[in-house]
Every structure is written in structure tokens, then in C-alpha cells.
């Protein structure tokens, strides 16, 4: 039986209807696709920005699933455990809204209104724009959810009382998105936004005081990182890691590849390059380099005192002997180093700083710069803790700090001994 056909006058209507349905369907499809590609672009942007903020480093426990939190962070006030920021609906960010996420980043308050401990760098993240915070949130909502309860914070009295943070915030927290400086270039402003905001560089490169705060007036002037016993050098003093006399290329190489013709990153900075900076675009890295190079120069080191001069005269001959036997094959007889592979020691700021913590630790513990996209097979510094005595390490470190017109001071066997028990992770 054949299907009854529609009266002729209705046929046109049918065709018209199917056409408009088709158009409508196509339109909807295009809209959905458009929204999807917009979503995909936002998520990709969020992934990039999450890397710039290095969220993964603290919010993942090494060896476990990313963004599930649970990483223990020893602080002078007790141990903090990072929370789960995967999109799990009960233990992570699954039930959060974009508004709540922005408020957390911008004002340092959790969803419930409680004050965040400043281990979360909200004093830096407050500078992040709403659009960037939204993109990061979109990305985090899109990573695999991990069901893992947050651990209770294990802080000593009285620091376990979050209300005390009100005082800390009054002293050290200024809420507000980054305001571009119209007198500076677009590139400088982009660099400032990244360094001061997501990069949260000042968390380590500004001295932390007894209250766990860092003063704005001392921004980027360097300091010992509590509990880790690494010294984060000043980014402003040309006598420390100040970058005033570095080329933009060398600064960019150091940040992105982890190595440069002037020196390599090590210690906690290796983690920053490995997890974060190596993934940033050439233009963003360059912008950061431009900003860092332009930081005003401050501070100066003091001349060696009489005791240090005597120590140098006593230790340097032994130091030179050890240097020639153990170090010169890679760093060169004159401390000249070689390209990216072997950092120069002559004129290397990082070994001459007032704080001798870093060169001592490098000799004791050795270390690889991070394996990065641009430098996947880094050369590594061998550890010497098992081979050299405290006196021998003091001698060789004194030698490299004072040879070749380096202006560092002598160190003692006690300085070395104190760092033999420094934490390695």
C-alpha cells in the first residue's frame, strides 16, 4: 500500500518546513560547534595559564595523580597539605562556580569564606585577570577527576587558628588585579603581569620574615627559603642573581631551557622550570626576561672581614688542588665553563653571593638541571658529600668564590657541616 501523498498545495509547505528545519539544525550545529571550539580554546588557554602559575607542583603529590593535592609542605609553622583541585564533585572543585574560583584566587578566601593560608600564593594570584582566572577554572574542570579527601592541616598552636591570618593579610596582602603601567612597553607589562602574578616569583625571591610574610619594599631582594635550605638569590642585585648585565637571550634560555651560557637553574628553581617555565611561549619568556632585566638594582655586598681573608689564604691552596683534580675537566682551569653544558664559575654570581648556601649544597649534593624541551639531556653535577671532608668542601668552595676575580668570601668547615643534613626533597 502506498503512502497517501499530501495534497499538492501542502507539498511546498513540507519542502519549506524541511528546509527550514535543516537550516535550523545546521545553525544549531554550527552554534554548538562554535561554542565547543570556544570551550576548547578557553581550556587550552587555561592549561597554559595553569602551567604559568605552576598549580601542578603543589597540588600534586609526586608519583600520584595530578591535581589531587595531598602534597605535604613543611613550613616553620607546621605542615600544610595542598587541597584537591581536580574536578571531583565531593573532594575537589567539581561543585565550585567560576565566581567562587575567582574570589579564591583574587581575595584568598575559600568557598566557605575561610581565609587561605598564604602557602597558596594569593598575594600574587590576586593580580590575575578575571578572564585568565576563568580560563584556568575551565581547564581544571576538564582534567580527570580524582576522588581523594583533603588532609587536615597540621599546624602548631597558635597558627592553627585561621582568624590570625587577618593580621597577616593586613600587613602583607594587597588585593587587586594587575594594573598596566602606561609608561612602560606592552612587553614589559606582560612580563610584570606574569612575574608578579601567576609566576609568583616573589614567594621565594623576597626574604620571608618571622611572620611568614614578605615585605613589598624588599621585593625580589632574595632570601633563604624556609625549611628547604636553599637561598633564592636577589633578582635586583647585580652581585647576586640580578640580571642587569645579562643578555635577554641568556635570561630567556635560563628560564625556558633551564641552562644558559651564564649559569644553570638548580634546587627549587629546577622544579619551576620543569613544571612551568619550559612550557611558556617564546614571547612570554622574553617578556619576563625584559621585565626582570629592568628591575632596579639594589644592594651591595660587603668587603671580606679579616677572619674571612685569613680563611681564604689558608684554604685556597687546598681548594685549588681539589679544583684542578675534580672540577676543571668540566668547568675549565680558569672557571670558564662551556656553553650550556658546563656553567662557568668565573664571574658566576650564584657562587659569590653573601650566602654561601647554594655553592656548598651544589658541591655536597650535586644535581641535574631540569630535563626540558629545549635541553632534554642535561649534564649533571656529581655529588661530593661522600668523597670530600667538610674541610675539603670548604676549601674548594672558598677557592671558586675567590679565584678569577670572583668577589665572594671564604667559608668554614662548620658552614659545610651544617648543610650535610639539609633536606633533599
Amino acid at each position, binding site marked *: 500500500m502506498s503512502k497517501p501523498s499530501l495534497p499538492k498545495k501542502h507539498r511546498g509547505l513540507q519542502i519549506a518546513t524541511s528546509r527550514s528545519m535543516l537550516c535550523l539544525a545546521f545553525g544549531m550545529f554550527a552554534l554548538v560547534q562554535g561554542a565547543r571550539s570556544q570551550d576548547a580554546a578557553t581550556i587550552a588557554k587555561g592549561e597554559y595559564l595553569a602551567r604559568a602559575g605552576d598549580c601542578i607542583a603543589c597540588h600534586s603529590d609526586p608519583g600520584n595523580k595530578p591535581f589531587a593535592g595531598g602534597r605535604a609542605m613543611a613550613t616553620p609553622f607546621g605542615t600544610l597539605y595542598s587541597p584537591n583541585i581536580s574536578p571531583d564533585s565531593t573532594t575537589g572543585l567539581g561543585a565550585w562556580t567560576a565566581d567562587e574560583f575567582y574570589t579564591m584566587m583574587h581575595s584568598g578566601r575559600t568557598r566557605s569564606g575561610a581565609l587561605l593560608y598564604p602557602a597558596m600564593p594569593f598575594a600574587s594570584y590576586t593580580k590575575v585577570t578575571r578572564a585568565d582566572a576563568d580560563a584556568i577554572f575551565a581547564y581544571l574542570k576538564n582534567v580527570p577527576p580524582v576522588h581523594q579527601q583533603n588532609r587536615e592541616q597540621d599546624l602548631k598552636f597558635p597558627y592553627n587558628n585561621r582568624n590570625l591570618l587577618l593580621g597577616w593579610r593586613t600587613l602583607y596582602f594587597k588585593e587587586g588585579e594587575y594594573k598596566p603601567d602606561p609608561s612602560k612597553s606592552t612587553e614589559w607589562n606582560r612580563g610584570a603581569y606574569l612575574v608578579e602574578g601567576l609566576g609568583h616569583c616573589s614567594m621565594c625571591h623576597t626574604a620571608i620574615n618571622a611572620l611568614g610574610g614578605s615585605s613589598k619594599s624588599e621585593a625580589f631582594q632574595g632570601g633563604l627559603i624556609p625549611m628547604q635550605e636553599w637561598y633564592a638569590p636577589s633578582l635586583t642585585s647585580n652581585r647576586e642573581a640580578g640580571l642587569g648585565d645579562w643578555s635577554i637571550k641568556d635570561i630567556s634560555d635560563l628560564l625556558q631551557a633551564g641552562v644558559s651560557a651564564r649559569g644553570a637553574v638548580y634546587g627549587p628553581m629546577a622544579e619551576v622550570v620543569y613544571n612551568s617555565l619550559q612550557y611558556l611561549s617564546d614571547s612570554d619568556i622574553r617578556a619576563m626576561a625584559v621585565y626582570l632585566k629592568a628591575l632596579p638594582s639594589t644592594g651591595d655586598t660587603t668587603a671580606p672581614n679579616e677572619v674571612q681573608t685569613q680563611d681564604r689564604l689558608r684554604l685556597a691552596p687546598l681548594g685549588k688542588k681539589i679544583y684542578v683534580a675534580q672540577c676543571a675537566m668540566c668547568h675549565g682551569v680558569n672557571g670558564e665553563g662551556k656553553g650550556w653544558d658546563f656553567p662557568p664559575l668565573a664571574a658566576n654570581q650564584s657562587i659569590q653571593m653573601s650566602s654561601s648556601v647554594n655553592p656548598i649544597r651544589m658541591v655536597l649534593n650535586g*644535581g641535574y638541571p631540569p630535563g626540558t624541551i629545549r635541553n632534554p639531556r642535561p649534564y*649533571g653535577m656529581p655529588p661530593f658529600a661522600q*668523597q670530600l671532608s667538610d674541610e675539603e668542601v670548604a676549601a674548594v668552595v672558598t677557592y671558586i668564590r675567590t679565584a678569577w676575580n670572583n668577589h665572594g668570601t671564604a667559608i668554614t668547615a662548620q658552614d659545610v657541616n651544617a648543610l650535610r643534613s639539609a633536606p633533599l626533597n
Partner: protein
Amino acid sequence: MRKVDCRSSDFLGTFCNVALSMVIVVFFAMTGRLHAQTQNSVTASDSTATRVMACTACHGERGQGSRDDYFPRLAGKPTGYLYNQLVAFRDGQRKYPPMNYLLAYLPDSYLREMADYFAAQQTPFPPLPKPDVGPQVLALGERLVLKGDDARHVPACIACHGASLTGMSPDIPGLLGLHSKYISAQLGATRFGTRVPIKPNCMQQLTTRLSEEDITAVSAYLSSLPAPANPAPAPAGSLKLALTCEGLETK
């Protein structure tokens, strides 16, 4: 015969100028090179051997092991085993802070290169200190290593690590050339779950069936054995394993 005179023709003049320029260029290139050589005194070669100097400072120049009890031999161990250990140290499943620290930020491909390098090293076994235990302890060790203990479902070491105890490619390590204290520490750590193998993970199950005395005996006996005639691990799949580890993989 006419002397070649650069002034005698345009052609010759040009030729002489070009030749002179070339001589000057070559001269500067050579002195420049000499100059660079005197400037840079670095003698380390561009090689994997140089890249792993951070490893060989403790494990021996070619990974042969050292006099220290806890710096094990790496040379000639199966590459898959070495790679798994490097990954476990990097990611924290195997804990020893100096190793965790060194490897923390190195990519898989580089760890693979390091594993391949040490697996390929053929170097003599250094003499080991005589284990400080009596003949009865060594006899217990020998029995467990060669025969196991059926009553406790403990297979012999040789059942998986090979009759010559040099391991099997790609993942099962050789057990010779290691200090007694090192072996004992690894068995203990595996038993208490602080050393978690990635693959195969049957050792944890097995070590829970061993007593402290068993571990001391096995470690002492293994470290008392002479270097193997052929240090190469058995080819992959050549041994029928005593335990089916595959089904128990954790990763």
C-alpha cells in the same frame, strides 16, 4: 722565464689579491681556532659517560659498584630493571633522598638512555668483603637461593633470577656483585612496603614469607658468590618464572 708579477696584468693582479686574501683568511681562521683552544680548557667529552658523572661518582666509573655497602653495581643489569628503578626514584615509589633529588626533573627518554648505558657496561666485578656470618647461616642462605622452601611457598632465587643469578632481560635484576648489607636492606624495604617495585611486583608477596634470619642468610650467601663466568642476563622469556607476576602488576 718571466716572473709572475701581480702588477703585470689585471687578471694576474686579481688572482694574486684573491690568493692573498685567502691566505689571510686561513691564517686568521687557524689562529682564531688556536686562540679559542687556549681560551677553553674544558676536557670533558660530549658523551653519555660524561652526562652520567653524577651517577658514577658513587656507583663507580663504569657502574661497577663501590666499596660503600649501599652504592650498588649497575653495570650489566637488565636495562628494563634499571629504567624501572630510575623512574621509581624519580617519582618517589623508591625512597633514597640523594637519588630522589638527582632524578626529580629528568624526562623518561633521558632515564632510558641512562639505563641503556649502564646495562651495556661490561666491567669486572670488584671483590666484596667476606660476609661476617657462620657456616650455618651461609648454608641456610644457599638452601633458600638454590632450592627455596616449598613448605612456606618460597621459590628459589634461581627460579626467576636465573641459574647463574645474573637476572633475565628485560626486568629481572642480577643478584651478584652486591654487598650483603645492600641486598638485606632491599629485601627488608620490599617486605615492609617502602620499596615498591613497578613490575614485576611478586617480590613483596614473597618477602613477607621470609624471616629476618632468612634475609640475613640469603644476603650473606649471595654476596659470598664469585663473579659469574658470563655476566649477561638470561634472554627475555628464556626462564619459566616460579611466580606469575604479570597478573599482579600494580602499574
